[in-house]
């Protein structure tokens, strides 16, 4: 953990709504995208001369394409119900991080150019000209929103600031002021197939290494197939799963589950990314391009089902948008939903009693579960509303003896974002990420002290990366964040196949050594 020149917020016993501190985060903005990465996504390379005109035209266009935007811009009554609901406000105390104030940065300009009251009496209704300062404010504060939708749960009209952030980011990208982190990643995923820019050989190499590790560990030849044709399942997983900690332990968990289920499966090097950053920048077109890679891979590999690994916003795009963006998936087996979440897959096997666990393997941990925002508030698992909360918890309870939930206001639909979602998981926003994690850290501290919780499980690649980075700032250890399928991986009892029975003795030795 590096030394920092800002104050790490103090963890309080009970959540406290902070007093406003104007411009507390005015200095925080991410790097602007370079020309090359702007143009490859179809945007202007740098700020265009007539950017005001272009921005206002784009704003108008978006209000005719998205009903959400059109209704949300008109409907806010400034009741204030959302003002204390954003983790970035709670963590930074900057008033412009209150959801309604964030929306107003965009709404005030909309009012000025698109409403009668704003044209006639701008001062009275708070309407504002689109000036350079306003554009800077947009860039600053629409990159302090992780599009987590917590505010939308609590607004009487369901106004979702995420929709406004997406629109604002699209307008900014259009005038030539896109964000470096997101746009570079989208570029890589659109050309190389994943956010990390891992080419096929590197991927194959990594997976081979995993096969060796797992076999050494368990004595069972669990496979990690890549680009294998004619399998039942195509697994699409966030590329962080290939090597980051604790993500990779989750990937090992999926592989063991597939192995035990006896289902043939493969990953694809062409679509080796579940994440879809097109959503973060509000670009339907770019999001669609990324989604189409998955469709193409499924056709090319001739699979029957698509299963997604643990990732929050990826699951939103997969569950809520994939069918829209890249459907219809009538070439897949109609017996299964398209796509499925790995938790649905595992949960189904558990409920049919097809997996055996030794829960004591996880006895060195006492767990809690962090509901990732996009899974909690923008998708579902299973057949019933709220399955996204019960399925992962069922899996944890099937694989662990010690589990406690965090306080009610901080879980399920009220869950707090990890602080790094929505395209903000970049080093140039570290201060924001640390401060935005405050409400989650408070909730974690609560169960640590009251229930002896030692580890927090999650099903999102961004959450996992973010927590391993920010936990130490609050006095926790970076490895206190684990993958849900890591717990599965620890506890699952693998059936030995014929080949490995021969090695039985050697394997017993191994275990002794390992113990």
């Amino acid at each position, binding site marked *: 953990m590096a030394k920092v020149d800002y104050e790490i917020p103090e963890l309080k016993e009970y959540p406290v709504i902070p007093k406003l501190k104007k411009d507390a985060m005015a200095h925080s903005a991410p790097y602007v995208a370079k020309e090359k990465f702007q143009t490859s996504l179809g945007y202007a390379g740098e700020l265009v001369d007539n950017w005001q005109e272009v921005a206002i035209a784009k704003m108008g266009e978006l209000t005719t*394409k*998205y009903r959400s935007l059109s209704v949300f811009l*008109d409907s806010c009554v400034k*009741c204030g*119900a959302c003002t204390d609901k954003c983790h970035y406000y709670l963590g930074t105390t900057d008033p412009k991080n209150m959801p309604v104030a964030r929306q107003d940065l965009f709404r005030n300009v909309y009012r000025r150019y698109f409403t009668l009251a704003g044209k006639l009496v701008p001062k*009275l209704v708070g309407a504002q000209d689109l000036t350079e300062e306003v554009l800077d404010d947009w860039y600053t504060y629409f990159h302090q929103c992780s599009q987590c939708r917590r505010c939308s*749960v*609590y607004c*009487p009209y*369901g106004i979702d600031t995420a929709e406004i952030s997406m629109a604002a980011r699209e307008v900014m990208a259009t005038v030539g002021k896109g964000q470096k982190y997101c746009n570079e990643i989208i570029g890589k995923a659109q050309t190389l197939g994943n956010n990390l820019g891992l080419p096929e050989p590197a991927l194959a190499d990594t997976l081979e290494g995993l096969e060796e590790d797992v076999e050494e560990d368990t004595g069972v030849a669990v496979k990690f197939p890549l680009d294998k044709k004619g399998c039942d399942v195509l697994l699409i997983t966030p590329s962080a799963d290939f090597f980051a900690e604790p993500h990779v332990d989750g990937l090992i968990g999926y592989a063991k589950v597939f192995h035990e289920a006896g289902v043939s499966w493969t990953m694809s090097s062409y679509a080796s990314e579940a994440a879809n950053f097109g959503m973060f920048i509000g670009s339907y077109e770019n999001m669609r391009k990324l989604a189409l890679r998955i469709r193409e891979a499924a056709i090319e590999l001739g699979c029957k089902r698509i299963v997604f690994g643990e990732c929050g916003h990826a699951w939103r795009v997969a569950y809520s948008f994939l069918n829209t963006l890249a459907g219809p998936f009538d070439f897949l087996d109609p017996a299964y939903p398209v796509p499925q979440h790995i938790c649905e897959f595992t949960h189904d096997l558990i409920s049919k009693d097809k997996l055996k666990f030794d829960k004591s393997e996880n006895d060195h941990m006492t767990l809690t579960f962090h509901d990732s925002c996009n899974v909690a508030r923008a998708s579902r698992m299973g057949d019933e509303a709220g399955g996204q909360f019960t399925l992962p918890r069922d899996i944890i309870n099937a694989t662990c003896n010690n589990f406690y939930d965090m306080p009610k206001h901080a879980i399920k639909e009220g869950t707090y974002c990890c602080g790094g979602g929505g395209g903000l998981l970049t080093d140039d926003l570290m201060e924001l990420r640390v401060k935005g994690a405050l409400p989650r850290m408070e909730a974690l501290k609560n169960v640590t002290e009251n229930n002896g919780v030692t580890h927090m499980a999650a099903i999102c690649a961004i959450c996992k990366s973010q927590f391993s980075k920010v936990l130490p700032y609050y006095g926790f250890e970076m490895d206190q964040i684990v993958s849900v399928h890591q717990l599965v991986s620890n506890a699952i009892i693998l059936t030995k196949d014929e080949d490995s029975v021969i090695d039985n003795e050697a394997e017993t030795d191994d275990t002794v050594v390992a113990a």
Partner: protein
Amino acid sequence: MSILFAVLFYFATAVLVLGVGSRIRKYAKTPAPLKIPTTPAPTTRRGVVFRMIKELTIFESLFKSNKWIWLFGWLFHMGMLLVLLRHLRYFTDPVWSWVVFIQPFGKYASIAMLLGLIGLLVRRIVVDRVRYISAPSDFLMLGLLLVIGGTGAMMSFVTSADIISLKSYLLGLMVFDIRYLPSDPILLVHLASVAILMIIFPISKLLHAPGIFFSPTRNQVDNPRERRHVAAWAIKLEQK
């Protein structure tokens, strides 16, 4: 005076109906290209209707969010609803029996409405977060409603207006026959501010009333895997 107010009311009604109508047409015509219900969301149409009814009657989300705003907001809206229904007696002859039935409730509802409004105004002034997000128009709007409610309650509880003539005037307006309007100043203030409210309705945040019915985070069914959902402009992308 009678003629002036007649003109005002015809104008206000036209603005309200045409203005709100055209907003509703815009909302209805603008596609929602992606499924974005705030989940957990109902998986059936019926479930969505139930969700919307809860939002409209008990302000469910607001209740989860903030008990004070909920209390004041709910008092104000329910009070206003009853008061509005009670006003139907000025426009119907003979008065519908259920409107007769609610008269006594409607009378006290005006107090609930005023209490709610005062509560909201106090919050807007006292709570630093709400003060920060308020534009002058937000205060004026509450002021206007307080004037409407205050003058109305005054006529019910303190002075008394010439209700017979007023009713005859309003019934006359409905058949384009301009009759005598009593020139009680309190009544005139009441009527003028109502007309102003009607005129600003389609250009202000009062659009939340029709808006809530079109809010995709609340009115969409959670079934994206079962049903493919594509907007017209998005289909064009597929044909490229």
